């Protein structure tokens, strides 16, 4: 009889408790039945990367650490949006606000910290925000869309990152800082001043020695008044003056509290069955905010929970390696001035680099680096080891390991020179040796592989360059530096980057994209121009003006060019249906314009080939008269919705497959997509309409409709994956439209749905469409909105509307 599982309850779902669980699952997966209560309504995400989300460089789902499937895979119950209100230590139970009570054998408190809100008059006005979690970022993004001015109180790391993010969102920003120089806890005055100058050059108004007296406004924030009486009008105030360990719950339940929840070296609180990790903790008088020590404590806590009796946390001096608004900063040890101290300073104003080393006697005690932090780890190891610096080594010390031997080493040799135990990634405590052995053991070839296997450069990312040098050093040219596939030769950016930047930087034309994103060519090429035209159309429906000259000829003239310069014409056949009138009209057009070839297509339609370009408007006019419109057989758009006759005729039919097929086609025709999209609806599992090799397929069954996605039947043959089953026709329409819109949002140009599916993963698509009703409805509504601007028949516009007449007429030179 296996040992009964112990119950581990976790309060809080941040990065520290996340690492505790990872440690436990690595060591003894079966030991605990884990239940998490998270006050925030979401999964564990990387808080260091909130700033790129605020500035728009990254999206939320890119910074997720544990997705829903991680919790499912490890049998963890995650109560989202459940704030715990009571711990009954006698009964060993925990109760959440919504009334969920569970018992625990071991309890882990990870309630993190609260932003400190200075109790100024007006601090509770709407528009006063903190900058701690995703909800804060979303509030800021909503308010930032109205532009206006934001005042950030606090010139520390968080305040400056909030300021840079709001600036990137188009707001004017003022930063108020109490002390004479910025980030005085991490930087010395010189580096603080350099940072201030850099931020001012970007348009951020910095006011040091600024003491805020009051926040003014009727019913909402309207301005800020300083002690010296100056007034600053603004629409938003971000309070980023510091954090306080969140100890209220622990205190309420009678645990011993200092500034934080006091714990011993095993992360145990005053109650032997209750542990605590993260920013709410106080150990040996210290509270912690940086990832490196928090991850180290989490690792130890995980080991202790798994029964280790020798694990103990020792407070160690930590270095601070930061990237504030794109500027690399590093500081370690004690860099305050002192009379018995000497300093070595290196300044390169034009390159924005400042380095200062502080020595006591022949020992290095402190270091501050601004602009170039590559040698930070090397200096820090010297501070920790307390190594004596011989006199002749002193004059090259400031230049780091590369010059230690006097001659400059190239980056690869510098990496080669590092000892195996040298720390490459500070956040996750990953050494050079660990990365090299992982590359061998797991056959890694790229950055993502190293991130997944060793976690190096997966948190704040500032060691990415070092990890890449290591890969290049280990694999030689088998490692190609930027694994990201660029859109084309005109740019170094990948498709996803361009799509995201179009939205975040609000770029509304192809010249704007090329200007802002630094295209290397004057006006792009035949690969990027059509892609950009689509991305802009998809990002700004009803707003972006289609650039015809950036479309491939087929889409420009709405017909397929043939090898002899003639064109083919394929009218739409809703769900593959036709009628006597349509057939007569087709026959008449074929005779009238002597169209040489008439053919049935794989998509259940009729194709007329060999039409001269000048005849196209005439052909379309006659087809329009018979009620036929363009079949978009030429476009990266919806092509066909094949159907079988289903319950209307067939003895096996379970639903009206033809009816649903026609409704789908009427809903989707005219929609521009990253690549062609083919659908089919089969009336029963015999699947005569071959729905299971289509981009989107529906297989009707007695109890409803199976929604299939990701099929292919061209160069590659691939069966679809079942996304879900729905009961009603209306749901089938909504789900198919949501899939198409998600594809329109995320697909890379010329990436079919099955390739997009392979890239993002069925589970992610399932999460965003099946598991998240609001998101599905939002996708559905956005699709229908975009269709309002793309469902006018292009043939009619040209046959009778005179649109693009020049395309269909050759020039006749004047005599």
């Amino acid at each position: 009889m296996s040992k009964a599982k112990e119950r581990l309850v976790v309060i809080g779902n941040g990065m520290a408790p996340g690492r505790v669980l990872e440690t436990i699952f690595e060591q003894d997966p079966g030991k605990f039945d884990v239940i998490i209560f998270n006050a925030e309504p979401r999964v564990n995400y990387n808080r260091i990367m909130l700033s790129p989300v605020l500035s728009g460089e990254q999206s939320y789902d890119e910074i997720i650490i544990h997705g829903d499937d991680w919790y499912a895979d490890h049998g963890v119950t995650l109560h989202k949006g459940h704030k715990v209100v009571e711990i009954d230590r006698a009964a060993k139970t925990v109760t959440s606000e919504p009334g969920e009570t569970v018992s625990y054998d071991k309890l882990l408190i990870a309630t993190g910290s609260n932003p400190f809100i200075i109790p100024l008059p007006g601090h509770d006005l709407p528009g006063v925000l903190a900058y701690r979690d995703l909800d804060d970022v979303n509030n800021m993004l909503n308010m930032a869309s109205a532009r206006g001015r934001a005042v950030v109180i606090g010139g520390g790391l968080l305040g400056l990152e909030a300021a840079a993010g709001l600036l990137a969102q188009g707001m004017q920003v003022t930063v108020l800082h109490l002390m004479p120089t910025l980030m005085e806890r991490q930087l010395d005055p010189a580096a603080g001043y350099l940072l201030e100058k850099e931020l001012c050059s970007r348009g951020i108004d910095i006011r040091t020695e600024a003491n805020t007296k009051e926040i003014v406004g009727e019913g909402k924030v309207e301005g800020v008044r300083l002690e010296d009486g100056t007034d600053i009008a603004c629409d938003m105030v971000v309070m980023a003056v510091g954090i306080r360990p969140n100890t209220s719950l622990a205190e309420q339940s009678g645990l011993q509290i200092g500034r934080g929840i006091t714990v011993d070296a095993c992360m145990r609180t005053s109650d032997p069955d209750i542990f605590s990790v993260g920013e709410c903790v106080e150990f040996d008088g210290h509270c912690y905010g940086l990832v490196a020590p928090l991850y180290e404590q989490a690792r130890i806590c995980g080991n202790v929970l798994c029964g280790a009796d020798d694990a103990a946390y020792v407070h160690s001096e930590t270095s601070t390696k930061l990237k504030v608004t794109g500027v690399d900063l590093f500081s370690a040890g004690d860099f305050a001035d002192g009379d018995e101290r000497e300093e070595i300073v290196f300044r390169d104003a034009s390159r924005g680099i400042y380095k200062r080393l502080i020595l006591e006697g022949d020992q290095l005690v402190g270091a501050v680096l601004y602009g170039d932090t590559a040698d930070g780890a090397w200096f820090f190891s010297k501070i920790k080891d307390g190594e004596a610096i011989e006199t002749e080594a002193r004059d090259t010390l400031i230049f780091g390991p590369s010059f230690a031997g006097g001659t400059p080493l190239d980056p690869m040799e510098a990496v080669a020179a590092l000892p195996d135990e040298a720390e490459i990634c500070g956040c996750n405590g990953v050494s050079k040796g660990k990365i090299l052995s992982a590359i061998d053991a797991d056959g890694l070839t790229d950055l993502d592989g190293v991130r997944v296997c060793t976690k190096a450069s997966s948190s704040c990312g500032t060691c990415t360059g070092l990890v890449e040098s290591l890969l290049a050093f280990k694999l030689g040219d088998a490692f190609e530096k930027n694994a990201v596939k660029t859109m084309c030769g005109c740019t170094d950016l990948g498709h996803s980057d361009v799509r995201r930047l179009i939205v975040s930087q609000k770029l509304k034309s192809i010249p704007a994209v090329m200007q802002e994103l630094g295209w290397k060519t004057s006006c792009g090429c035949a690969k990027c121009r059509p892609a950009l035209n689509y991305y802009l159309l998809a990002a700004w429906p009803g707003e972006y003006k289609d650039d015809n000259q950036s479309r491939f000829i087929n889409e420009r003239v709405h017909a397929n060019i043939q090898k002899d310069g003639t064109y083919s014409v394929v009218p739409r056949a809703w769900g593959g249906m036709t009628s006597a009138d349509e057939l007569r009209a087709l026959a008449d057009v074929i005779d009238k314009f002597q169209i040489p070839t008439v053919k049935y297509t794989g998509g259940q339609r009729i194709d007329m080939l060999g039409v001269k370009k000048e005849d196209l408007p005439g052909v379309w006019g006659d087809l329009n008269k018979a009620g036929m419109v363009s079949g978009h057989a030429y476009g990266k758009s919806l092509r066909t919705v094949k159907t079988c006759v289903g319950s209307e005729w067939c003895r096996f039919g379970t639903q009206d497959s033809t009816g649903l097929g026609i409704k789908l086609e009427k809903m989707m025709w005219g929609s521009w997509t990253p690549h062609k999209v083919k659908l089919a609806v089969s009336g029963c599992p015999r699947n005569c309409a071959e729905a299971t090799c289509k981009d989107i397929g529906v297989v009707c069954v007695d109890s409803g409709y199976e929604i299939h996605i990701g099929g292919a039947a061209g160069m590659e043959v691939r069966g679809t994956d079942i996304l879900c089953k729905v009961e009603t026709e209306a749901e089938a329409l909504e789900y198919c439209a949501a899939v198409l819109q998600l594809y329109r949002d995320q697909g890379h140009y010329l990436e079919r749905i099955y390739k997009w599916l392979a890239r993002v993963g069925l589970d992610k698509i399932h999460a965003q469409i099946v598991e998240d009703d609001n998101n599905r409805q939002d996708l559905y509504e956005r699709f229908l909105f975009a269709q309002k601007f793309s469902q006018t028949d292009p043939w009619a516009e040209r046959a009778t509307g005179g649109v693009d007449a020049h395309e269909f007429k050759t020039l006749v030179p004047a005599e």
Partner: protein
Amino acid sequence: MDGMQPLENWLNVCDLEDIPVRGARRFETSLGEIAVFRTKDQSVYAIDNRCPHKNGPLSEGIVHDTGVTCPLHGWIIDLQSGEARGADSGCVKTYPVKLAEGRVLVKTVL
């Protein structure tokens, strides 16, 4: 430009505005079809409308900088030299072009 009297063998083809920017138009001549291109910087070029590769109609291609990408198989033809760019080798005939009072003139007979 000395007045508008007909110049020997310069064909008065069309208005500059008849040609879309980063686009092209085509006209028939006894020697076959010629395409006139108008690039982003408003300069105009005239070349045979037959790609050296497989006679694709270059006038239908996407125009970028001083090149056009043939719609059939993606060869890039330089509008100034008529030469194929990159690994492809081949050349198409080019014709001198002049602008006079908004009209595009092409010298078809050399």
